[in-house]
């Protein structure tokens, strides 16, 4: 417990964060790469083709992980926003704002792969069905968050404002998830995340889970990198960054 608490506090300081992330980044990078390659092999080669959809279902290995992540990242964003507001932690805001862009990208990927998949499955690129629309709204939320943050010139104000928006917007996440149950939609109901366990061939399921894990680590990686940049920019005038710069120059 004590160790955890200490770690948490260390993460809370930009300088410590910078050090810790330097150590973490290679690990995150390599594991995510390995997992993604492994899952691709399992998914594209080992897993059998679907008796209905043939091979076109394999896009699931990109679509579903990125769709999950688009929601997960939003939750991360909202939680760090809350932490930032309540405990006034600098790093929480950094995590918040650095999550926005990856979140938007994953949402974008989910939308694009979804509509690529939709064409063979439903015969259209786009359908105004509840889940698709709410995913689109999530995209708007991300855009709104990024736009709002960039509209302020005093960072202190931007952070708080964005945090409020992020927290208010979190109601959209359950709406996206449950939309398939609340409304009659074209989109697949929950097949993996079900109370009674996943309804899917295990040979298809495993690659999906591995891929999802790999994507998650990849998100962690981009988050770390973005956060490091942000920290450097924010603390550009502090002595530890200055000394970092001089170190670099000497090398």
């Amino acid at each position, binding site marked *: 417990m004590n160790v955890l608490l200490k770690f948490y506090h260390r993460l809370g300081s930009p300088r410590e964060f910078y050090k810790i992330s330097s150590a973490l980044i290679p690990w995150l990078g390599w594991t995510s790469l390995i997992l993604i390659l492994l899952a691709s092999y399992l998914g594209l080669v080992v897993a059998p083709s679907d008796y209905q959809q043939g091979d076109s279902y394999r896009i699931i290995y990109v679509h579903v992980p990125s769709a999950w992540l688009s929601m997960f990242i939003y939750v991360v964003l909202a939680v760090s926003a809350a932490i930032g507001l309540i405990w006034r932690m600098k790093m929480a805001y950094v995590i918040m704002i650095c999550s926005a862009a990856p979140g938007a990208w994953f949402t974008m990927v989910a939308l694009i792969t979804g509509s690529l998949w939709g064409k063979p499955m439903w015969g259209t690129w786009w359908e105004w069905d*509840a889940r698709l*629309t*709410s995913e689109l*709204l*999530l995209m*708007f*939320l991300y*855009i*709104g968050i990024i*736009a*709002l943050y960039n*509209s*302020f010139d*005093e960072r*202190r*104000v931007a952070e*708080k*404002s964005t945090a*409020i*928006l992020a*927290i*208010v*917007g979190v*109601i*959209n996440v359950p*709406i996206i998830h449950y939309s398939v149950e609340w409304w009659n939609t074209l989109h697949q109901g929950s097949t993996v995340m079900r109370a009674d366990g996943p309804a899917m061939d295990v040979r298809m399921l495993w690659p999906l889970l591995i891929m999802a894990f790999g994507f998650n680590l990849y998100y962690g990686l981009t988050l770390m990198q973005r956060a490091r940049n942000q920290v450097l920019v924010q603390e550009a005038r502090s002595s530890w960054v200055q000394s970092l710069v001089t170190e670099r120059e000497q090398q």
Partner: protein
Amino acid sequence: MTSTLYRLFLRDCKHHLRKQSDILNPLCFFVIICSLFPLGLSADRELLNTIGGGVIWVSVLLSMMMGLNQIFRDDYEAGVLEQFLFTHTTLTQVALAKIAAFWCLSALPMIILAPVMGTAYHLNGDQILVLMMGLTLGTPTLALLGSIGAALTLNLKNGGVLLAILILPLFAPVLIFGAGMVSAVGMGLPVNAQLSLLGALMFGSLSLAPFATSFALKNSLDY
């Protein structure tokens, strides 16, 4: 506390009425958007009935959004908002009073006018009733959530359109339930579930939005 709220509420109403068009405007806007659609589409009875509920809801939503941008702006730009900090009145009270005044003078008239519009779109009696109930439960939520957005974008130059982007995703659930009810009732389906969801959304936002708004207001004084 109540009397302060009431006094602030009255002041805001008076201002809106003095500006005259402030009440009339969203109303006119509402009427105009509602009438644009039959122009843009066609006057087919069936079609109008099908889209009626949706169009009226979307018009209400857009009209309210047009007004939201102004809800705190006058007081903010004049420097009145910051003066409230020096009084017993809290920004939460200020926010609540302003939201209430805004609702009374923009949403309420639209709710009252909704039957007329409904008739124009050939909605039947039940549908109109459900439309009005939906609007009564839904518009406070829109005003409350919208006020958060309005407070957030207060010290931005480009507030107006950014505001739209920020709050439209938040408005979507209200729209879905509200407009969904009208079509459901047209098909003879029950609408209790949607009504209670709308009610829940209203109470939820009523209990949270004023605080979020007042926090955002305080934040926008930091320049």
